């Protein structure tokens, strides 16, 4: 992919982000932060590439540490979001 294609994806994604985030209800802003935290750990992709590579020893170790850190975030972020979202309940209907 050339730079312009990548830039196009980025700019369009910024607009998607803008509209999607404005539609998030304020009551869920804390779960929003927790889940954005989890998904930004998609940086694990880069960490895996570094850790998988044969070559340089230091780079590999840096990659492995990054994999561990990103995993804390991925598992922690999704789990805590799920825990929070499970607490939001509607009023019980009384007959």
């Amino acid at each position, binding site marked *: 992919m050339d730079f312009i294609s*990548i830039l196009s994806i*980025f*700019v369009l*994604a910024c607009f998607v*982000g*803008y509209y*999607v*985030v404005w*539609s*998030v*209800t*304020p*009551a*869920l*802003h*804390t*779960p*929003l*932060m927790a889940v*954005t935290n989890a*998904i*930004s*750990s*998609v*940086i*694990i992709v*880069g*960490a*895996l590439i*570094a*850790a*998988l*590579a*044969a*070559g340089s020893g230091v*780079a590999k170790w*840096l*990659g*492995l*540490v990054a*994999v*561990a*850190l990103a*995993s*804390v*975030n991925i*598992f*922690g*972020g999704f*789990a*805590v*979001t799920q*825990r*929070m*979202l*499970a607490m*939001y*309940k*509607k*009023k019980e209907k009384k007959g």
Partner: protein
Amino acid sequence: MEHVAAVPAWALLAYLVSGVLFILALRGLSSPETSRAGNRNGMIGMGIAVVTTLATHDIASLPEIAAAIILGGGIGFITARRIAMTAMPQLVAAFHSLVGLAAVLVAAAAFLNPQAFGIADASGAIFGASRVEMVLGIAIGAITFSGSVIAFAKLNGNMSGTPILLPARHIINLALLLAIAFFTFGFWHSQSAMDFWIVVGLSFLIGFLLIIPIGGADMPVVVSMLNSYSGWAAAAMGFTLQNTAMIITGALVGSSGAILSYIMCKAMNRSFISVIAGGFGAEAGPAGAAAAIDRPWKRGSAEDAAFLMQNAEKVIIVPGYGMAVAQAQHVLREMGDKLKHQGVDVRYAIHPVAGRMPGHMNVLLAEANVPYDEVFELEDINTDFGQADVAFVIGANDVTNPAAKTDKTSPIYGMPVLDVEKAKTVLFIKRSMGGVGYAGVDNELFYRDNTMMLLADAKKMVEEIVKNLD
């Protein structure tokens, strides 16, 4: 740039799918009903991204990677299960710092082993565009890391929440920024290792310096801003790796944090620049506090409060950070339930900056089993205070101060506030009359004829009220 090691078309599609699933994860948060499905989409998206990466690379070190994932994932999962809901702001700050650090490590690994990332030619020279992208990624990552560590320390109480003001701090920060730009240019020009590591060092330093002058109650803005930075760091690394999942996610998270910062600033009627410049509330204290002593005010007891609320038709509860500190949300819900059983209409009003992060109060009330359709945002409930018999303020202060509407000299003038004074009676829980709110201004509300001060620890006072409701 056809240099990137041939990634099969199916893998490119898979990364795109995972990017779309992340968009759906955020889209789900538009209402609590759809949010749980949204979160599952996010998990699936992450699974796809990880599996795709593993499947498209030669795996030289599977056991180590499995160990790293299990170790990190285990720590994250257990922490997420055990953490108290009141500690959510510091948990989020801690998570931000990890994203930042991971970005730093990935960028450093890409610098040390560029061939593995397909961003260098055979001689080891990194492509010009990749140099800029990786150095941006590492700089933003480093700022996110050190800034989040300070934010964590302030939120967790390891460090005082009062602003720490260095002399000439704006000049120092500006000089640091210019230096980062200069060495970034140097690295782009010559791929000098020294320039690279200098940028890293300076970025850690500026992240630290940016956050220490910012006070505790401005933390919602800071946490949102760091959230945004962690996104931009991921996006920069996505450019380096030409990975659509990372670019889409980075853009989503970056805009999300930016929008939250904007909402928080607007709710305080302050510009983003003034929040980031820091120091708010550090100087104003004494004048406001001194004025507080002489004016007459009314003190009420738990029995008075219980009596008033039992005989009310409509009660609006206004929670703030003090409720979180006192862990009073559960007993507050108990009070609300008792009142509801006695036929009182009970609702909750939440100011956008109540608490230490966006939506903090909503989570605490949800934790205490308050149905979310009884909880209202400022603009949806503010006109109803006129018809309310009792406004019950627990742990909030500045967000109820009528001076924001009338006193042009007040530091909080123009900030949207909850019109609690329009209720027939205001019950205001506060530890003592001496202290002032975060903004360092006295609250005129305390001295109104229709205000009754309940001086006690928030949790103890509500417990007393509950006893008196029987």
